[in-house]
């Protein structure tokens, strides 16, 4: 008899430390389901962030590396460059990715690093106890925004739409935003993850799936209320779906051709210059400008 459903091999059979209603458990589950489906458990490496999912190594039954807060894209860069045939997953929360690690994520994405970032956005710092995150919504309360996030009056800034920010970068090939508020979105999110992992294994450049997730404890709600809050507030602001998808065959081929042309142009420019002088003059930038590659 064919087995249709079961506990993923890549996920340990233990209870998590996560709070009731937290999204991490579901996200761990769908990541490991995809890894199993793709048969990649023995070639999967995850970089754990700092935050609630710091314990990911207790749950994922494959290799992990724990870098400092926000630095996982840099560490994952090192891992993936050394092991290009492995599935490298960068698991990050909103404080990790969009505050302390902003430089690392932008530059890893721009370099088209071939790992996949799973970005869990619950609009709050969880582990440290409910401080304002870069993705905290305007008006949302946090221990460090006791009267609610006030973007300009109190100088707290605006909630950052990370995928839209990254979409302008030439190295990003697939950026999608899902949620784990209901079964439909869980299934869609899983599809996004699978698409991203497949693209990674095909060497197609930077891929990232942002997942809107509940944090009932720090939102100070019960799990059911937190799902409603996410639906009423987070989904309308952030929006779900594939924000950027350059994976389609024809687009990809076209993009590859352009990048290849640029590489040739780049080499020609460098070779035509006196030894030791490699800074390009204005006209040497033309091949890039003409093709309009970001």
């Amino acid at each position: 008899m064919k087995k249709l459903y079961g506990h993923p091999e890549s996920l340990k059979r233990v209870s998590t430390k996560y709070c009731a209603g937290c999204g991490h458990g579901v996200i761990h589950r769908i990541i490991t389901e995809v890894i199993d489906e793709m048969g990649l458990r023995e070639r999967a490496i995850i970089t754990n962030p700092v935050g609630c999912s710091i314990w990911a190594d207790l749950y994922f039954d494959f290799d992990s590396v724990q870098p400092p807060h926000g630095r996982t894209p840099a560490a994952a860069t090192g891992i993936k460059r050394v092991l290009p045939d492995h599935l490298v997953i960068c698991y990050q929360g909103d404080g990790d990715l969009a505050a302390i690690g902003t430089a690392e994520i932008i530059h890893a994405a721009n370099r088209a690093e071939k790992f996949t970032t799973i970005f869990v956005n619950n609009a709050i710092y969880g582990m440290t106890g409910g401080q304002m995150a870069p993705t905290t919504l305007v008006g949302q309360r946090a221990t460090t925004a006791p009267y609610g996030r006030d973007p300009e009056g109190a100088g707290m800034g605006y909630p950052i739409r990370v995928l839209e920010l990254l979409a302008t970068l030439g190295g990003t090939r697939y950026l999608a935003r899902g949620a784990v508020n209901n079964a439909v979105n869980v299934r869609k999110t899983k599809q996004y993850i699978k698409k991203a992992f497949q693209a990674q294994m095909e060497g197609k450049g930077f891929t990232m799936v942002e997942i809107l997730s509940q944090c009932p404890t720090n939102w100070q709600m019960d799990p059911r209320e937190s799902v409603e809050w996410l639906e009423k507030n987070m989904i309308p602001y952030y929006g779900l779906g594939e924000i950027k998808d350059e994976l389609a065959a024809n687009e990809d081929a076209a993009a590859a051709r352009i990048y290849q042309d640029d590489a040739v142009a780049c080499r020609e420019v460098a070779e035509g210059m006196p030894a030791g002088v490699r800074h390009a003059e204005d006209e040497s930038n033309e091949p890039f400008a003409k093709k309009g590659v970001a």
Partner: protein
Amino acid sequence: MKGNEAIGEAAIRAGCTAYFGYPITPQNELTAYMAQNMLDKGRIFIQAESEVAAINMVYGASAAGARAMTSSSSPGVSLKQEGLSYAAGADIPLVLVNVVRGGPGLGSIAPSQADYFQATRGGGHGDYYTIVLAPKSVQEAADLTYLAFDLADTWRMPVVVLADGMIGQMMEGVVLPPSRDLADLPRRDWTVGHMHGREARHLTSLDLVPESLEAKVRQRFQRYEEIKAREVRYEAVDVDQADLILVAYGTAARVCLGAKKLADAAGLRVGLFRPITLWPFPEKALAQLAKRGKPFLTVEMSMGQMVEDVKLSVLGQAPVHLLAHCGGVIPTEEEVFEEAKRLLGRG
């Protein structure tokens, strides 16, 4: 060959397969050398967005099995301290070259030894040490860089090559070590990837149970004791009959060697003691010399940092003096000679 380039070539020959750097003077030739030569050899080179990112790329690359390295100069090395602490805590080997410049802050771009405290006391947060190697010449910069990779692998910890702007920028003849066969590097049985049926590995510095973390740190310090017993390196010149012993490392030791020659010519008995490993510090050898009760003159391109280790080694058995310059100022042979004469009552 320029010191910075010799360091780069020695690293490549030692089997460095991944280098990550960020521009900063006076070590820029090293990053440029690695860009050209690592890429030509199909090895990994990335100009990172920051020193913070570079050290974490090293962390990841080493965790995945590469002999990995980064380099910088003082302000940049401060930025790397976070990553260094994590690497020490997760037992991940790496090589960090610091071509030291004058500080604090942005300071100057001239040679300095003011990062001694940072290098020999771990540098980042938490209980840990790194092995610290201090070259005095371009030749030694190459040799010690080469050695650093083996030490890092042997002891599974970060190794710092503490050069300075003089070593990095000057040109000298150098005999380069042979190229290591990448297939023949020391085996690492702890890296991530290629599970092949084994249990999952988790490389982390995290342990939230105090007793468990203490046990791990104590075990690491046990290893540090072994390193102290086996890896101390120093050079001693004419110390046994000396009436005064100069103590200096790196560029300052080169100056002291010149001063010693002036002293020899003047008929003074001056010796030179030069630590090559700054951690582990050659404390026993120095303590042995101190038993004779003759004075020491520590010469440093800082306001006096190593002198504290000299005093800790000597433990009051002999007077310890200091000749200090900072900010990028290099002491002269004549100045050291004059101070030696003064201390010997011949000034």
